[in-house]
């Protein structure tokens, strides 16, 4: 029943999907690693970014791969402002409050989208959307392959940014020892904003990579929330490598699960992995115990 002719394309497609999952999880893990908060608004922000990419194409006629140049900085600014002026002040530095504030923001974004754009599912048709590459063992969508390599490059860029630039070093300093960083003259509130902005910008890029072959509706982000959390928990909270490996792993699990058990039960595989990892090894594959 499961000949390699079916299995190999399923695995390859899982890897490609998983790479975009990894980018979404990268934003989440970055925010967690520095602010030590779980951002429940992550899915809703992805929805917002998908809508932005959708309207950039429909209204302005911009190809998502071009629009990303504008959307990513826009979402960086949005994320920065959200952390600095809403989440930070509203949560009074309590972890439980952060959970609730980000949940509240998610509800607001999703339902404003529902109110403004209705529940319709929308797609765009870009020229490259249907092109495929024949790699011998499988046919792969061009935009998905582009997405895969874009994510690899971005992960490298992000990694280099964290290692080599002053801002990156400041982010890592705050992540390690917030008080010490503050004493050394780092503006922690600013760094928090920058980190949240970077995480949100990752979402914006992921949205531009997704939209050619994906759809958008007000609830689309919800589906990604638990997937992204699963990846982050699996890879280890705060680990960039973990997010990449975890993302690809989850992409493959989802793809094979869908193949073996059908679409809706295939999703179950992800949640089962999630619950098992949380129960058995909450620090994940690459994480260290806090």
């Amino acid at each position: 029943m499961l000949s390699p002719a079916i299995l190999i394309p399923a695995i390859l497609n899982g890897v490609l999907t998983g790479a975009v999952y990894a980018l979404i999880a990268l934003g989440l893990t970055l925010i967690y690693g520095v602010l030590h908060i779980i951002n429940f608004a992550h899915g809703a922000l992805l929805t917002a970014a998908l809508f932005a990419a959708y309207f950039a194409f429909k209204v302005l006629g911009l190809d998502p791969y071009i629009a990303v140049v504008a959307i990513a900085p826009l979402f960086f600014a949005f994320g920065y402002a959200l952390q600095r002026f809403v989440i930070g002040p509203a949560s009074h530095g309590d972890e439980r409050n952060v959970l609730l504030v980000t949940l509240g923001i998610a509800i607001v974004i999703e339902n404003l989208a529902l109110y403004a754009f209705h529940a319709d599912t929308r797609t765009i048709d870009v020229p490259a959307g249907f092109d495929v590459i024949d790699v011998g063992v499988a046919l792969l969508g061009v935009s998905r392959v582009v997405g895969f390599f874009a994510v690899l490059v971005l992960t490298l860029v992000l990694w280099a940014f964290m290692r080599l630039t002053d801002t990156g070093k400041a982010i890592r300093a705050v992540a390690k020892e917030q008080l010490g960083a503050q004493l050394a003259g780092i503006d922690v509130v600013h760094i928090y904003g920058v980190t949240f902005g970077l995480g949100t910008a990752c979402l914006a890029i992921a949205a531009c990579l997704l939209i050619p072959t994906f759809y958008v509706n007000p609830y689309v982000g919800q589906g990604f929330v638990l997937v992204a959390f699963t990846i982050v928990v699996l890879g280890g909270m705060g680990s960039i490598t973990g997010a990449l490996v975890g993302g690809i792993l989850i992409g493959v699990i989802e793809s094979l699960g869908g193949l073996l058990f059908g679409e809706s039960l295939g999703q179950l595989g992800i949640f089962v992995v999630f619950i098992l990892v949380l129960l058995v090894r909450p620090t994940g594959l690459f994480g260290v115990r806090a």
Partner: protein
Amino acid sequence: MKSTIAACAVLASIPLFGASNVTLNFLVVALVVALVGQGWNILGGYGGQYSFGHAAFFGSGAYVTAVLQVKYGLNAWFAIAVGIAAGALVGAIIGFLAFRSGLRGSYFALVTLAFAEVLRIVASVTPITGAGVGTLIKLDMRPEAFQFQSRAVFYWIILFLVFVSLLIAGRLEQTRFGAWLVAIRENEDSARALGVDVFAIKLRAMILSSAMTAAAGCFYAQYFLFVDSSIAFGSWISVEALLAPIVGGSGTVFGPLAGALIVRLLGEAAKLVAGDAPGIDLAIYGAVLVGVIAFAPRGIVGLMAALSARLRANIVSAADGSGKHG
């Protein structure tokens, strides 16, 4: 105790003044949310364990109530009793797994959310729950079948359940169990160091909390005579479960009831202003959640206590002031 009886007596008299069916329907749903919220409050408000997946218990109660009647022809009252027990069992299993693994804070929130999602997906595909179509309870307007001609009867039943939940929460504040629970919320490690059996206390709170929430689910199924996966296990109920107590004042007896009434009124007001457009009421809920945490972290109950304390202080200082002049 006295204030609980007084508040419920006032609420119980509402149908006697000829409230319309629309008003009663509004109150019934608000009281369902109050009951779910009280369930959340026991675990989250007093115990500090924030669950994002109370839909798991609400849905288990609702589905068991419906399925036992429809597929097995059992009596409604019996089905409801089993539904509450089933909700408590689901709570015990999730609580056992999560607390045994030492999951706290955001991890606990995530794992409860994941369990609720698993149940939602399972319910949306398995035949016994009616899969995607849902389960319809047959119309049978007899008290034996827990169906009543008058909405007022449903209203009094849910009010009675809320009354019981208020008594339980009130009792909690006076018992050692409640004190241990609050100690865990304030500082789990210190509580453990002082000899509190943290695991057992959290598990007991989880079971009590999930049974209460399941009771609301059972009632909901019987009131609307319909259950499907997005109603029973959908995220809406998990959100309302925590919204009501937090807006009202988490870790207080009356917080969930006050919060449920306010939140539901806000939702209705939003619909009046913006028309029946989907989304606007929920968007306002989200904004209220953020606003309450930012400006009134102890909720409406806490706000009122602070206001009355200030008022009293003003009166005292005013009296002192006049005393000096005289």
